[in-house]
């Protein structure tokens, strides 16, 4: 059994009720597990919400995480993703004085575009795999971004 820390994406379907998010995050903090990112939104036309948690740990730790999540009463299902489509969004605010056509081309390479222009700044959005978002944010540095927001990953099993 490998003891190295692996990046893992876990989706959790929970009843959409008060304090359910605290139950999940308390479990992670109380047992010393790691949360890299966490997204939550209700599942349409149901009483459930879906959480996507990016975490890291050894095989044993990941197995414990999924089992412990399952033990929580409002948790319906836990998916430990193996073969998935995973996407993340990033929004970047950049001074309007930068080279906008270059920025637009760069965004297009990462499934994005400029979505808003203001008096002094523009906002661009890209949507891609988390690893590629890292690359994009590196590349965009030369255009002096003022603010960057990452959404955290969402994933669906293929």
């Amino acid at each position, binding site marked *: 059994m490998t003891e190295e820390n692996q990046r893992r994406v876990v989706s959790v379907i929970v009843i959409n009720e008060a304090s359910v998010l*605290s139950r999940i995050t308390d479990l992670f903090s109380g047992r010393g597990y790691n949360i890299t990112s966490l997204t939550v939104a209700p599942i349409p036309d149901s009483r459930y919400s879906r959480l996507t948690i990016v975490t890291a740990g050894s095989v044993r730790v990941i197995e414990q995480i999924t089992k*412990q999540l*399952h*033990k929580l*009463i409002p948790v*319906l299902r836990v998916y430990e993703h193996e073969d998935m489509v995973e996407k993340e969004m990033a929004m970047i605010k950049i001074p309007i004085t930068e080279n906008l056509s270059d920025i637009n081309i760069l965004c297009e390479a990462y499934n994005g575009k400029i979505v808003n222009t203001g008096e002094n700044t523009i906002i661009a959005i890209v949507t891609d795999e988390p690893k590629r978002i890292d690359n994009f944010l590196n590349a965009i540095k030369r255009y002096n971004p003022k603010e960057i927001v990452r959404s955290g990953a969402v994933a669906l099993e293929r």
Partner: protein
Amino acid sequence: MQISGAQMVIEAFIAEGVDTVFGYPGGAIMNVYDEIYKQDKFQHILNRHEQASVHAAEGYSKASGKVGVAMITSGPGFTNAVTGLADAYMDSIPLVVISGQVPMSLIGTDAFQEIDAVGISRSCTKHNYLVTDAKDLPRILKEAFYIARTGRPGPVHIDIPKDVTAQIEEFDYDIELDLETYKPHTKGNPRQIKKAIEAIAKAKRPLFYLGGGIINANAAYEVREFVQKTGIPAVETFMARGVLSFDDKLLIGMLGMHGSYASNMAMSETDLVIGLGVRFDDRVTGKLSEFAKNADVIHVDIDPASISKLVNADYPIVGDVKNVVSDMLEQVGKIDSNNYESWRETIINFNELHPLTFHEDSERIKPQWVVKRVGELLGDDANISTDVGQHQMWAGQFYPFTRPRQFISSSGLGTMGFGFPAAIGVKAASPEKTSINFTGDGSILMNVQELMTAVEKKIPVINIILNNNFLGMVRQWQTLFYDKRHSETDLSVQPDFVKLAEAFGGIGYRVKTKEEFDAALKDAVEKNVVAFIEVIVHRMENVMPMVPSGGSLFNMMLLEKKGDK
């Protein structure tokens, strides 16, 4: 039926067959206490501290197998109860604990006696609820009892704001529970069970590793049959004492940090661990990488998260131990008990080499003698509770347990102050048996106010205080591992325990000789009153054998042979 939230609580208790509630009133829970006053279906026992109410409910539950119920008020009432919740959570004890809360309109305003109770209890309960509307209360109450007692049992906490207990709504307890997200797995996988049986049949040195889950599942008698029919030796965890009777030839003893030499050696030499209702606690395994190093592991437990958490299970079986062992019994014919004859002899040799024993002292009573003596005098007629420390380990090692639910102790959390209130709950659940609490001069003072509860309600608990004028277990570690620097463990300054018991209306005895002890115990049992029997025992006695924390099970510190000194 249109009733208030407070009445709903009472009605739910009655519907659940609750006959005893432990608690302490206060501002936010007063509506419910008003309804308790008006009813005569169950008794309420007023403890003198909320922590004791929860421990009493735990003792009641452990002795009876039913869900224990405690009731407390908001703020400090609740925070006092948290230790009890944590204790029940660690030992998988089914409880429903109800706390009052400030009215909804005041929540979040730092109101008088307001605290975020569900925020605090979340990490030490199986589940919890903040009730925001009395319409939800019937369902929540029913769910709480169901969740507490099913699956891996545990405490459920319900926090009810004062205005919700006053709110009048329709009450219907005859509802079907719709718990789509909670479906405990109780039936073991037949293919896994078959494989496990085959592994047992092939093993040369198999060993039963019996845990507290067997008692929770009411499976002790199935397990006894399984052990008998297979002829496989067994070790018990501290939590499992009483699963097998002490005189069962196949019971080696307790394993772990203070387990017997033979038990720990058997675990180190076995080639197949048959774990039933266990969780491979660090106090049992010692150094994990050396634990049962040459063995495959069968692990039966109702909690999937306990399986392969610490020790990898080669044959994992998720299910209720009672179901799984019953299924295994159907195939027990495949196992030939003659195969293990030489293994059983090996274990007898371990036991002869270093039997679990102690050396008598001519000047002072040895604490182990007291435990053994109570066993000789009361045996099966007593239920045994303990506090936490040396006396607790001696009780686990030396009392001759004959049945499940006879031994009640704080195992996982190790809560000093547990014993006396728990013994009150045990006596309330099982009045026909003598309720003994083995305690120490440290532990007893942590819930000594329960003298008042026991005296008022005429619950004759006999507390046997093994007084060594030390916080003994910590002192033992300091002696062994801290170069005898006995930091803050000398308890030479003490109350007069006899007068203390008398001040509350109980009886106190101070004994220094074996004869005095016999007379005191006999007198206390006959008088059937709340008692302290303070036994002046040898000050420096250590609990042996001992596996130092983090050490391997086979590396035990052993009792010095007589004359070694």
